[in-house]
C-alpha cells in the first residue's frame, strides 16, 4: 500500500475522492494504522506539553485569530502595502491568479536567467500548484530539499502531511528508497545514517543549483519582509547559495506589522511539532548582493474562499498541522486518503472550495468531535465549517441517494410521533423475534462490526404513559 504512487489531483479531470474507500484500504493493515496513529498522537502530546508551558496560551490564540481576521478583512490594503515595501527592499513582485499563472511565472524567471537546476525548500503552495511536474516537463531539474519532501519526491508520492510530509513511511521504507536512489547499503535503516546520506546527496544539489525556491510562513506588510521557518536549515542554504531566489506565497499569509509576528512565532512550532520555536526562523528583507529575489503572490481560489461568508475564516490557517495530528480520523486514515495537497480537517474545509464535487466526501471524513477547533492556534471553527460544507454537498446533490432516502424517511417518522411509536414498536418486535443472523444482516454496515442495541419490550414513552398516568406530558 505504501508503494502506491500518489497521484496529484488535476482539478476537474479526476474521479471524486472516496475518503472512506481509501481509509478502508489504510485500515486493512491494523498494525500500521496503530503505528501511524501513535506517531501522530506522540506529536499531539508534545504539543500539549509545549502549550502548557505558555501561561497565556489561550490569550495568544485569541490574539492570533484577531490579527488574522483583521488582515483578511483588509487584505487589499495589506497586500499592496507589502508589494510597495517589498519593491522598496529590492524585491521583484509578481501576482498569480491561479496555479497555472504561478507556474508560468516561475518558469519564465528560470528561462530568462538560463537556469536549469532548482532547489526547493518545503512549499505546500507549489504542491498545490503542481509546480514540480510543470517544470520537469520543461526540462528543469527540480529537487525538494526538505528531508521528508525529498523522500516522497524520490518515491513519486505526494506529501501525506503538510509539516511531516513522509510521516506515512517507516524508516525501513526510507532505507529502501535511499538504497534505490542514493545508493546507500541495502537494509540500512538507522535514522542518523540515513540523514547523513541525505545531507551528502543534497549538499551537491545545493552547490549546483541555479536557483532556489522557498515558501513563506509570514509576509509582513509594514516591512516588506518575510519569514521562513524550517528545522533543517535547507531554505537558508538555498537562499545563501543560489543567485536567484523565488519566494511563493498564498495571499492569505500577509500580516500587518512586525510586532504581530511574535504572536504567531510563539504559536506555530509549539502547535505543529511541540517545539518552542523552529530551529531556523529566517527573516528576509531583501536580496543578497548580486542575487535576484522574486516574490510571487498567489491567489488560486483564495479570494473565492474569502468571499464565502461561511468559510473565509479557514484562510486564517498558518499551516502548523496541529489539526491533522489531533484528528482521530486523519490518524487512522493517513494523509493520502484525502486526495488533496492539504489533508486533515483544514484540508477538508479548504479543498472543497476548489472543486466541491470532487472533494464532496471530505467534509464527511470527520465525526465533528471538535478537537481540531480546540487545538487550532488561530481558532478556525473547523468542525462548524465541516458541518456547513456538508449542507452544500447535499444541496448540490453530491451525496448518495441511499443516505438521502434514509434521512427523508427518518424525518417523516420524527415529524409524526404516533407513526414513530408504531414503527419503532414494530421494528423492536421484529428485532426480538428474528434470528440473530437476520438482525445482523438487516443492520447492514452497522452490523458488520457491531451488535445492534438489544431491543427492549417497550419504549420509554409507553412506560411513561402507564407509570406516570398523572405525569405532565405537556400535550399541546
Amino acid at each position, binding site marked *: 500500500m505504501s508503494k502506491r504512487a500518489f497521484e496529484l489531483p488535476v482539478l476537474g479531470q479526476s474521479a471524486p475522492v472516496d475518503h472512506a474507500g481509501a481509509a478502508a484500504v489504510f485500515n486493512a493493515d491494523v498494525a500500521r494504522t496503530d503505528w501511524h496513529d501513535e506517531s501522530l498522537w506522540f506529536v499531539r502530546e508534545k504539543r500539549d506539553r509545549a502549550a502548557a508551558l505558555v501561561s497565556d496560551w489561550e490569550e495568544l490564540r485569541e490574539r492570533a485569530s484577531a490579527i488574522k481576521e483583521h488582515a483578511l478583512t483588509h487584505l487589499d490594503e495589506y497586500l499592496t502595502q507589502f508589494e510597495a515595501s517589498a519593491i522598496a527592499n529590492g524585491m521583484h513582485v509578481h501576482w498569480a491568479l491561479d496555479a497555472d499563472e504561478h507556474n508560468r511565472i516561475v518558469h519564465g524567471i528560470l528561462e530568462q536567467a538560463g537556469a536549469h537546476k532548482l532547489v526547493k525548500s518545503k512549499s505546500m503552495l507549489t504542491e498545490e500548484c503542481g509546480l514540480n511536474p510543470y517544470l520537469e516537463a520543461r526540462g528543469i531539474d527540480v529537487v525538494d530539499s526538505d528531508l521528508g519532501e525529498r523522500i516522497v519526491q524520490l518515491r513519486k508520492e505526494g506529501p501525506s502531511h503538510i509539516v511531516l510530509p513522509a510521516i506515512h513511511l517507516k524508516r525501513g521504507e526510507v532505507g529502501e528508497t535511499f538504497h534505490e536512489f542514493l545508493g546507500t547499503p541495502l537494509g540500512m535503516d538507522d535514522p542518523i545514517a540515513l540523514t547523513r546520506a541525505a545531507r551528502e546527496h543534497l549538499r551537491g544539489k545545493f552547490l549546483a543549483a541555479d536557483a532556489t525556491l522557498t515558501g513563506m510562513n509570514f509576509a509582513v506588510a509594514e516591512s516588506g519582509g518575510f519569514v521562513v521557518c524550517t528545522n533543517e536549515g535547507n531554505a537558508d542554504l538555498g537562499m545563501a547559495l543560489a543567485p536567484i531566489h523565488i519566494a511563493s506565497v498564498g495571499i492569505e499569509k500577509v500580516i500587518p506589522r512586525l510586532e504581530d509576528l511574535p504572536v504567531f512565532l510563539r504559536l506555530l512550532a509549539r502547535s505543529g511539532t511541540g517545539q518552542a520555536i523552529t530551529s531556523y526562523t529566517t527573516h528576509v528583507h531583501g536580496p543578497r548582493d548580486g542575487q535576484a529575489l522574486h516574490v510571487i503572490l498567489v491567489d488560486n481560489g483564495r479570494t473565492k474562499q474569502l468571499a464565502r461568508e461561511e468559510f473565509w475564516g479557514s484562510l486564517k490557517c498558518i499551516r502548523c498541522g496541529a489539526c491533522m495530528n489531533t484528528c482521530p480520523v486523519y490518524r487512522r486514515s493517513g494523509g493520502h486518503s484525502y486526495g488533496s495537497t492539504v489533508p486533515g480537517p483544514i484540508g477538508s474545509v479548504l479543498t472543497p472550495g476548489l472543486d466541491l464535487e470532487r472533494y464532496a466526501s471530505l467534509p464527511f471524513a470527520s465525526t465533528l468531535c471538535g478537537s481540531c477547533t480546540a487545538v487550532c492556534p488561530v481558532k478556525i471553527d473547523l468542525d462548524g465549517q465541516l458541518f456547513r460544507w456538508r449542507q452544500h454537498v447535499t444541496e448540490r446533490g453530491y451525496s448518495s441517494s441511499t443516505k438521502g432516502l434514509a434521512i427523508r424517511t427518518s424525518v417523516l417518522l420524527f415529524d409524526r410521533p404516533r407513526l414513530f411509536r408504531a414503527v419503532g414498536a414494530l421494528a423492536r418486535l421484529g428485532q426480538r423475534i428474528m434470528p440473530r443472523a437476520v438482525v445482523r444482516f438487516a443492520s447492514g454496515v452497522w452490523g458488520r*462490526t457491531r*451488535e445492534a442495541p438489544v431491543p427492549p419490550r417497550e419504549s420509554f414513552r409507553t412506560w411513561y404513559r402507564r407509570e406516570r398516568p398523572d405525569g405532565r406530558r405537556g400535550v399541546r
Partner: protein
Amino acid sequence: MKTALFVPCYVDQFYPRVAIAALTVLERLGVNVDVPEGAACCGQPSANAGYARQGRSTLERFVDVYADYEKIIVLSGSCAVHVRLHAGEIIAHDRLAETAGIRVARRTTEFCAFLHDDVGVAALAGLGARFEERVAVHIGCHGLRGLGLAAPSELQIKPFDKVCAILSSVGGIELAELSRPDECCGFGGTFSVGEPDVSTKMGRDRLRDYRTHAATAVVSPDMSCLMHLDGLARRERLGVPMYHVAEVLAGTAGKA
C-alpha cells in the same frame, strides 16, 4: 421553574431504562419535570448528515413543543449541542418563531450539566448511590467541547470535570485513569456507517484503552457513543458493561 426532560429518539426506543433512571433521579432530587409529547427528535441526525434543510421541520417541532419551558434537560450531550447551536439559526421564517428558537436554544441543557450547575453536586450524596466498579468515563465530544462538561485536553485552562465530580458522589466507585481520556469514540452519527472502517477502529481503540487500564465498566452521559462502543464490545464478547450516568445515580446500573 417549569422544567422539561427531553428523551432523544434512540433513547426512547432502545434505552428506556436510561430515561427511567434519569426521571427517577430528578424526582428524588425534587425536580419536577414534564416529559412532553410531540417531539421525537431534535433534528441532529439529518443536519449532521448534511440535510439540515430537510431536518428543519423536526427542529421546529422541538422548538414548538418546548417553547414555554424555562429549562429543557436533554438526555444526550450531542442532541443538546445541536439544539443550542442551531435552534436559533434555523427557525427564521418569521420573527416570532425566531425568538422562540433562540429562547429554546438558550434554555437547553444536558442531564449532567443540569445536575452540576443547577442542582449542585452536594445534593447528590443524598441519592445514596453505590457502584462498586472501576469505571472508565467517556464524556462524548459534543458534551465535552460543545457544552463544556469538562476541560478538553487541547485547551490550556484550569482543569475541571463535571461528570467525574458527579460520579465522585457515588459510593464504592473507582475512576480509571485513561491514556486518552477525551479521544472520540468514532460514532459520529452517519459517520458510523459512512466511514465504517475508521469508525470501528476508533471505537476499538477506546475499548483497548479501557482494557489497558483495567476498567470493569464504562459510564457516559451520552448513549449514542455507548450504542456504538457497546455494539463493538458485545460483538467481540469483551464483557464490559456500559451505563449512562443516570443509571449509576439511580442505582439501577446492571440491575435490569
